[in-house]
């Protein structure tokens, strides 16, 4: 736990709650999204205060950055429709507020009812660490103790990409004026992001970092590149292979381990570090590509979107 700063913590907690309230009641959707991005950054600060640097890294890059970019993109495309005024206090709204308050009371009660000597799985994890192949307990939990979760999570990401491709939703991307500032920034930033992602992947074994944080940085670079010079990777086989490579490597390793007699995702302690690094490297590249694909969409809609953009533009 970092140094005790109760006043700072209380202020940060109040700020987070205030930001959440503001972003849900402010009339302007653009403002709401900007407040949400500030909320994400403040959340990353809270994770640092709670001694969760791995989570803070992912939150800053994904929660604030990537989600913000996706939301801003949608706000831009939805322009032209006014949001109806917020509901007046009605019986329904009061019922909703009472429901939320009841949920809150239950959560407070369950939080206070926890015994003081409850420490979760800290001891079990500490006892199993020597066999995990890494020294960062979060990476050990992600890739070794709870590898099943992470495997299925990558599958969920692939499902989301399939959904986005199937919905085929975008009108043609608005080409932003790629000014000299963005180009010059990218020339410096992109190599730095790639190096930093590689470092995070390697450092994840013994320090905060890992496949997710590295992938988030790479994806941020990809989104910036898309903003400067819009591209699309289409839905061809090379792209599909690259998107699924992380899941495939993970699954193949898991099945190989079954064949050699260890069990599903039960690494032999001696080589666990190597297996984990191999899975993480493949997972990082695939997750980065998946996150960019979620932002960029598929190629098909770009062609179709151009053809019928006029027909489908709703009246402003």
């Amino acid at each position: 736990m970092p140094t005790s700063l109760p006043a700072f913590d209380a202020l940060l907690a109040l700020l987070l709650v205030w930001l959440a309230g503001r972003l849900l009641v402010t009339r302007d959707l653009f403002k709401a999204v900007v407040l949400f991005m500030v909320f994400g950054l403040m959340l990353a600060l809270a994770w640092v205060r709670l001694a969760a640097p791995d989570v803070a890294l992912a939150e800053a890059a994904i929660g604030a950055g990537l989600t913000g970019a996706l939301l801003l993109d949608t706000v831009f495309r939805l322009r032209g429709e006014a949001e109806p005024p917020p509901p007046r206090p009605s019986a329904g709204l009061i019922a909703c507020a009472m429901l939320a308050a009841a949920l809150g009371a239950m959560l407070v009660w369950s939080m206070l009812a926890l015994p003081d000597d409850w420490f979760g799985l800290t001891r079990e994890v500490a006892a199993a660490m020597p066999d995990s192949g890494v020294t960062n307990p979060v990476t050990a939990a992600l890739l070794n103790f709870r590898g099943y979760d992470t495997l299925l999570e990558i599958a969920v990401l692939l499902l989301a990409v399939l959904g986005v491709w199937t919905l085929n939703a975008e009108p043609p991307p608005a080409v932003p004026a790629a000014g000299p500032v963005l180009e010059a920034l990218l020339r410096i930033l992109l190599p730095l992001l790639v190096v930093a992602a590689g470092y995070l992947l390697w450092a994840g074994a013994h320090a905060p970092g890992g496949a997710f944080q590295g992938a988030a940085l790479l994806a941020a670079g990809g989104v910036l590149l898309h903003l400067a010079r819009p591209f699309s990777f289409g839905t061809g086989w090379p792209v599909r292979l690259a998107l699924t490579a992380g899941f495939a490597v993970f699954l193949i390793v898991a099945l190989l381990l079954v064949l050699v007699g260890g069990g599903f995702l039960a690494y032999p302690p001696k080589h666990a570090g190597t297996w984990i690094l191999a899975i993480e490297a493949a997972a990082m590249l695939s997750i980065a590509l998946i996150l960019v694909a979620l932002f960029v969409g598929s190629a098909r809609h770009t062609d179709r979107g151009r053809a019928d953009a006029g027909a489908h533009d709703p009246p402003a």
Partner: protein
Amino acid sequence: MSTVLIYSFAGIALVCIGLLGLLASSHVLRKILAVNVMGSGVFMMLIALAARAQPPDPVPHAMVLTGIVVAVSASALALALLRRMRREEGSALLPEDRRE
């Protein structure tokens, strides 16, 4: 009040605000924002509970890390659905919230 308690209660407040926002707002984009706020509240409760131990329990950290990545992909899918609905029907509101 300890750090853990401060952030636990902040997490609970975020869950409640998010739930109210989800139920009370009519614009789908704002509902997506509300779900994200609610999810952040759940993450905060998990991480605050993990910080009760010394050193912090790494399992909730791993779960929240997974959760953040799943949340962004779910949001991306929801936003794609929203854009498709708007393209097909010309409105970003759910049918029962639309008024002529």
